[in-house]
């Protein structure tokens, strides 16, 4: 078993007119729930795009399970790492179960995956929406459907880009609990989150990005300190303990 499922070794790049990363170094061990936090434009979503090879990096700068990502085919990557983007459906009226089944594309069994789809829908609590069109369910239900698609892909690493957007507090808790459960089963969860308390309460590790650099990385409590929050976000925060639970007030 590889110690680090993801290793970034001197990654430089970003978009055509906007270089985000300069010589980024980062390693993520197997298992656990890792949050990526940081202000807008810090490079959180961009980092995830490098991990799924949507953005092309230099050779030997991103490694998945000790393999240079540039030497891996897209289907190989998709069997190791799944990704939930901030995608919003426009006019494509798939049903929820059709959209979830597309998670099996990399295995070539989209048409024969009814059991896996049903299981993913059960895990996310949206089995009753199976035959609904994805354009006619709420934003929160859609996020859960996309998480079900990611679960259906059955990978060791799950990357999620702001998955709790549009979710009400109950569904936020439910989704984050589900991610914790997946992490406890040995999967590696990497998730871009903005809510610092959600990170503090749910994530075992946190990567705090600032202007394309890793400002702090480690156990969540040691990363989300008053000083770090002040430096990276420019806001005054206070951390209190309420009913045995640390809470950040800002």
């Amino acid at each position, binding site marked *: 078993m590889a110690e680090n499922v993801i290793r970034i070794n001197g990654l430089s790049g970003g978009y055509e007119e906007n270089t985000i990363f300069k010589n980024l170094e980062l390693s993520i061990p197997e298992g656990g729930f890792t949050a990526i936090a940081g202000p807008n434009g810090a490079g959180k979503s961009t980092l995830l*795009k490098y991990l*799924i*090879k*949507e953005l092309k990096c230099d050779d030997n700068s991103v490694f998945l399970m000790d393999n240079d990502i540039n030497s891996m*085919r*897209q*289907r190989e*990557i*998709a*069997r190791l*790492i*799944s*990704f939930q*983007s901030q*995608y919003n*459906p*426009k*006019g*494509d*009226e*798939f*049903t929820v179960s*059709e*959209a979830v089944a*597309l*998670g099996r*594309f*990399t295995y070539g069994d*989209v*048409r024969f995956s009814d059991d896996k789809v049903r299981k993913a829908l059960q895990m996310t609590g949206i089995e009753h929406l199976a*035959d*609904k*069109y994805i354009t*006619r369910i709420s934003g929160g239900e859609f996020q859960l459907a*996309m998480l079900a*698609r990611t679960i259906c*892909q059955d990978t060791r690493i799950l*990357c999620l*880009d702001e998955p709790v957007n549009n979710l009400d507090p109950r569904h936020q808790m439910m989704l984050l609990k589900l991610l914790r459960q997946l992490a406890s089963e040995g999967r590696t969860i990497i998730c871009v989150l903005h809510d610092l308390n959600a990170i503090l309460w749910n994530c075992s590790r946190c990567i705090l990005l600032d202007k394309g650099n890793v400002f702090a990385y480690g156990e969540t409590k040691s990363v989300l300190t008053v000083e770090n929050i002040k430096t990276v976000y420019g806001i005054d925060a206070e951390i209190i303990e309420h009913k045995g639970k640390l809470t950040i007030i800002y």
Partner: protein
Amino acid sequence: MKETRRRPFAVGIVLAAILVILAFAGICLGSVRITVSDIVRAVFNPSSISRNTAYIIRNLRIPRILSAILTGASLALCGVVFQSVFRNPMADSYVLGVSSGASFFVGLGFVVGISFVDVSLPVVAFCGSILTTALLFLISRRNTGTLLLSGIALNFFLSAMTTLTIYLSNRQADNILFWTLGSLGSSSWPRLLILCVVTIAATLVVGRNTEAMDLLLMDDSTAISSGLNVKAVRIILLVTASIVTATVVCFCGIIGFVGLMSPHFMRILVGPKHRRLLPLSMLMGAVILLFADIVCRSLIAPSELPIGIITSVLGAPVFLMLLRRKRHG
């Protein structure tokens, strides 16, 4: 509540039945009236009917009907591909100017002396369609919002240039009508064979990528992380659609809106999954074009209208409806 839609088998059977009825009607109708028993005898026992009738059935009507079916199916296939790759339900080879690109290059071919029956004509047409497609692809990568308007502008420009080149090549006005409004009048068995090979090959290529096309409807990140090589699939699909468009333009001129209408109707009936959408759209395209061909041959018989007039009359309202739907939501 369970959403209802999608009875692909029922839709397929109904369309196939309509297609068979239209095919017989298409063979029977025309300046020389033919009965169903004539058709059966012409196929199985040609010596039992007059030589003229057998000739009309076997060498004029049947090739024309088959040409309408294959051309309609091909145009629908192109519509499905363009709409999926560009993620736009209003995209098709006619609206985006890809057909005009092919016809413009054919016109250029005429100017430099390539004849109408020259084997290089489809290659020249392909150069025009693939260049236009490449240009659209570049535009859509930079800004998907402007794709449709850019396509429409390209279509106007290339149509005008087609007309100019055909005038410069001293061709007659009816040739210009052929290229700009389409016709199935020059159908023949050899052309049909080429069209058949191209359509079957394209169907196999696109048919192998139906799940990939489903993923293309989602965003790039989702498609890529699902294991799809988005760039390669887009190129394969666009090159295939460009070859089909070029072949159709070479043999039948520009026939508008079939590629737009067919997937649109089928998407309403059976949903967006391409495994169902592709074959049923192709069937629908065949039905629409066969119907349009019968109408254009019957309205002012024994003369005939260019088929593009009928397809445009049918297709323009659909286009406006889609535009309205898009604006509202």
